[in-house]
């Protein structure tokens, strides 16, 4: 049997893929504190949490997609679209509830389009969502009339900007949503099906799972989650921004991969992905505090992605190719 640690027979690679991101989080916190005295103070940490809130929500859906063997590059456009829908609806009806429902519904619809082409027509997720990324971006501009739509009402602004007992509301939403999605992934048959499909779609089908339906549901859920993220984004900026949300999907994917979710499917955890998103947020924050040149920030982020992907390959290989006999 492969290399074993004493902890319930988990191998080193499994341990890393499950808990490694917490180690990285501690390293990021310590490094941040050492580099900048302004880092480890409550007000700064609150702002980090607010900054990564939208990414974190998106990462919940993205983790589910990656685990199930998919990916969504249209998520950023979807968030922009939903922020516009929320803003337009609020401005025309004055109802926050209608605005939120409409945003989530439109998001789910976009997810359903992705899911239909990927699951039932059999196109590659990468290509389909690249196409919808552009299409949805264009639609967002059309709906918004080419310019930002200002004003989304007090409730959404409260959601995006305020604190409750010192905690940002966004953080509370992220925590609640994380608990819920983590529950779905570990304690429902749907969650286990997604792990199985991402791990080996043929074996999943041979076990009686309706692979196409599960994948379709996965994309629809991702769309709805983008709708929620769009609402929060609208609240944070007090507007619907058709030009917003650019590259947000990558922020989410980086967080997921850093959190040990495999790009190849079948392996990953929602909680770890969220921690991964926060680590990326901390890296950004520390670089800002240290006044690192914006161009250098991009260089650093690119390197972080590479490291995350290398770690992904390393752990996956360790799990899948470990020799049975030593």
């Amino acid at each position, binding site marked *: *049997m*492969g290399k*074993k640690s004493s902890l*319930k*027979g*988990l*191998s080193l690679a*499994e341990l890393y893929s499950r808990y490694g991101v917490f180690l990285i989080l501690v390293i990021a916190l310590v490094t941040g504190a050492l580099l900048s005295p302004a880092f480890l103070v409550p007000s700064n940490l609150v702002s980090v949490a607010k900054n990564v809130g939208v990414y974190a929500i998106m990462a919940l859906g993205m983790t589910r997609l990656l685990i199930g063997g998919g990916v969504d590059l249209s998520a950023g456009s979807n968030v922009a679209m939903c922020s516009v829908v929320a803003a337009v609806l609020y401005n025309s009806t004055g109802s926050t509830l209608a605005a939120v429902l409409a945003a989530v519904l439109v998001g789910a619809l976009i997810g359903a389009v992705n899911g239909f082409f990927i699951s039932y027509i059999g196109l590659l997720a990468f290509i389909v969502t690249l196409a919808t990324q552009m299409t949805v971006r264009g639609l967002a501009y059309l709906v918004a009339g080419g310019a930002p739509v200002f004003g989304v009402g007090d409730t959404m602004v409260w959601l995006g900007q305020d604190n409750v007992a010192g905690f940002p509301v966004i953080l509370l939403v992220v925590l609640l949503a994380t608990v819920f999605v983590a529950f779905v992934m*570990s*304690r*429902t*048959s*749907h969650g*286990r*099906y997604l*792990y*199985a499909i991402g*791990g*080996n779609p*043929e*074996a*999943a*089908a*041979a*076990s*009686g*799972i*309706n692979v196409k339906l599960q994948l379709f549901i996965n994309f629809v859920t991702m769309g709805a989650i983008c709708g929620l993220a769009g609402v929060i984004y609208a609240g944070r900026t007090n507007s619907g921004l058709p030009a917003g949300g650019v590259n947000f999907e990558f922020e989410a994917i980086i967080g997921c991969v850093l959190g040990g979710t495999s790009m190849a499917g*079948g*392996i990953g955890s929602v909680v770890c992905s969220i921690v991964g998103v926060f680590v990326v947020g901390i890296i950004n924050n520390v670089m800002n505090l240290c006044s690192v040149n914006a161009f250098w920030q991009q260089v650093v982020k690119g390197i972080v992605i590479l490291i995350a992907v290398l770690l992904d390959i390393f752990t*996956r290989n360790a*799990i*899948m190719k*470990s020799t*049975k*006999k030593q």
Partner: protein
Amino acid sequence: MRNISKSFPGVKALDKVNLHVEQGTVHAVMGENGAGKSTLMKVLFGQYAPDEGEIIYEDKPVSFKSVKEAVNHGISMIYQELSPIKELSIAENVFTGRYPLTAARFIDWNKIYSSCQEIFDRWGLKYDPRAKIKTLKTADVQMIEIIKAISFNAKLVIMDEPSSSISQREVEKLYDFIRTLKKAGITIIIITHKLDEVFTIADQVTVLRDGKYIGTNAIGELDRAKLIKMMVGREMSSVFPQKTAGIGPPLLEVRGLNNGPKVQDISFTLHKGEILGFAGIVGAGRTETMRSIFGLDPYRSAEILMEGKPIHIRCVRDAIKHDIVMATESRKDDGLILCRSVEENIMLPSLYRRSKGGVLNVGALRSTAEEASKKLSVKTSSLDTIANFLSGGNQQKLILCKWLLMEPKVLILDEPTRGIDVGAKWEIYNIIMDLASQGVGIILVSSEMEEIINLSDRVLVMCEGRLNGCLEKDGLTQENIMNLASEVQTWERKAV
């Protein structure tokens, strides 16, 4: 090759095997699955280093350390699984990896096509070097692979079951070409277990069995019966477990099952407590038939009755609902989710029965999985262990585990003991017998003769997508199975 031995951990794959091939002849190497044919060829071709023995090639002792070295000495090998690049042209495939270059180090396209045409002209073949591989039939692709092999100036060509994926008609073309090669002085070693093939084209036959050298004969000295005897004549090593209950009433009746060329007009009846064997050579359509019944490849037409009532199976879940389950052939491809835990794998098919509105009772799942894995004595350090870390035998038991939890009435087993060690095999045989004794109807697809003969109550033999015969217990011999498996018979179709 003299006294070649080769061991792998736990298995002696070759035990002092001899192979003497005359130049310019077609030499067949025969034996059952696992007899050591492929290993022997890989030793010759420089892929494995022999533990002992020597290879003498053109009167000189040689030891090839790599495939490249073997190729440089004029030896080529054509594998059973063809590996053409389908989107490229014939000529490009022939010259893959050694494109002729122009002075400026670019690929010399004219030369590729003209040299390829030259080769075709020389061998009297009518292919367009510019045609894409994907436009060709399997048999033609096989020819291209052979052309590729001999274009390395090969003097000795090894073919691993060249006709296994070619239909009967196209095979003639292949045989003609092999005869042409022989006339040109090229030596051919052909690995096969088709008897007809041997008698059609081979000059000499060497038989291996269980990694041991049995003998070499000129084809004139042999007849079918003699050859089969050489291949299978062995003592049974152990006593197989016995059933404790008899066969009951009909359970699953399949009438006129059709699904493409590999599943044609299949009809049979499986009884309660019966073990019904499906024999045949690889590619005869047994797996495809089972996949059709299980709903993995929905069938075009069939009448299926379960305990006398007609049922329709359009997807796997339909089959499961009617208590028909199938442990698929390959653990890696469609058997297990190797990157997930033992427990998740065991519980996967039955999750839908064990959730309330989709929500799982994790504690109950764990105890159920615990019980199930204990019952089949799956050896694992914990239920959280990733399935990939288990041995082949334990992975196979895991597959059985997950399906037995469904309490099936019909259990289809596709090669349940492939590639697992002897101990685990016997455990699985015992499980199969227990289940049959409890009244489960079992369909056993297996290529291991000993296994299928000793476990089955009846054996249906498939050949080229059709049922080719039914052997009852008294006629259940390896010779009979081999005969039915290797050529299409005009067989009186009665209800089986």
